[in-house]
């Protein structure tokens, strides 16, 4: 696409990659898949390293992991689910770190794309959370009790149920997984496109000598945005985790 004599890459060019192996099969392996595998391995290795020593006075990796686990415990689980939700700590901690590592590849040189900028990963994680909170609700309140408490919220005049029940059904069972997936996906894709745009601008100005006077503007923006994307990567991992915790917590304790 041409704009001001600049060649902006099309959307296919910045989010699609050539397969490394397994071309055309179900097991096609490309850069995004590689990033997913690396994120999973990074999460695994980090926790194995931190847990292997079990030192009383933590050092190095153990220090970071212990403060991160405490953050998930104090900031996410206890705030939203209460003490009865502590059994969900392992799932939520893993979820947080896997999403964070998938996101942070956005600013790591060579990779430069978050795995969550393709719909597959956010959609899978959102569907996983969706299945989990429905199953937890059914286990804790029984199949009838769960659907009764989520579709017919107490304290509403009977005549209003005609209006309330469809809205509750759509917002709980349809919009929740959709918005969970789209929020992560769109945030990371938008960040990726922003970085690409400013990189293209900086590169074009660097090549065209006379325009080098205005060069600092996109370059400074690029540096600033790279810092901003680190913030977004952490924030989106946090928001995905806390929303999953809120949904599971809501399924465990029905509103009275």
């Amino acid at each position, binding site marked *: 696409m041409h704009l001001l004599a600049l060649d902006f890459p099309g959307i296919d060019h910045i989010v699609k990659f050539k397969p490394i192996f397994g071309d055309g099969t179900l097991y096609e392996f490309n850069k995004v898949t590689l990033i997913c595998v690396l994120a999973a391995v990074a999460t695994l290795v980090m926790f194995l390293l931190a847990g292997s020593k079990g030192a009383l006075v933590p050092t190095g990796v153990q220090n970071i992991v212990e403060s991160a686990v405490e953050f998930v415990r104090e900031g996410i689980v206890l705030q939203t689910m209460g003490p009865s939700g502590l059994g969900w700590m392992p799932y939520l901690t893993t979820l947080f770190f896997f999403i964070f590592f998938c996101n942070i590849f956005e600013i790591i040189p060579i990779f430069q794309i978050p795995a969550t900028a393709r719909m597959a990963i956010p959609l899978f994680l959102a569907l996983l959370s969706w299945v989990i909170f429905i199953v937890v609700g059914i286990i804790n309140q029984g199949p009838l009790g769960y659907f009764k408490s989520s579709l017919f919220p107490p304290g509403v005049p009977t005549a209003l149920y005609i209006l309330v029940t469809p809205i509750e059904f759509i917002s709980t069972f349809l919009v929740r997984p959709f918005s969970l997936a789209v929020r992560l996906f769109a945030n990371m894709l938008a960040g990726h496109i922003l970085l690409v745009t400013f990189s293209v601008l900086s590169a074009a100005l660097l090549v065209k000598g006379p325009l080098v006077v205005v060069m600092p503007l996109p370059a400074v923006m690029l540096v600033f945005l790279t810092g901003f994307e680190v913030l977004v990567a952490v924030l989106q991992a946090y*928001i995905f985790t*806390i929303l999953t915790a809120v949904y599971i917590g809501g399924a465990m304790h029905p509103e009275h």
Partner: protein
Amino acid sequence: MAFAPLVAQISGADQISFGEAISAGFAYGLAAIGPGIGIGYLVGQSVQAMARQPEAAGMVRTTMFLGIAFTEALALIGFVVFVLLKFA
């Protein structure tokens, strides 16, 4: 309406991409208005709450992020519509 004279000058297949480009811009621009006001109001009120009652800051912050996540979703859906119109 205002674009009618412009559209008349463009022929055939270009009219569609013209419409797509215009509506992609409108889709994101309009979708950003509401959440922009909403998030501004939400964070402003949260700061006020935290300033008035600093001991409740942790709880207010968690709820604030939850509120931001829900409000922001509308703008992001607008962004997805923009991407779909512009590129798909």
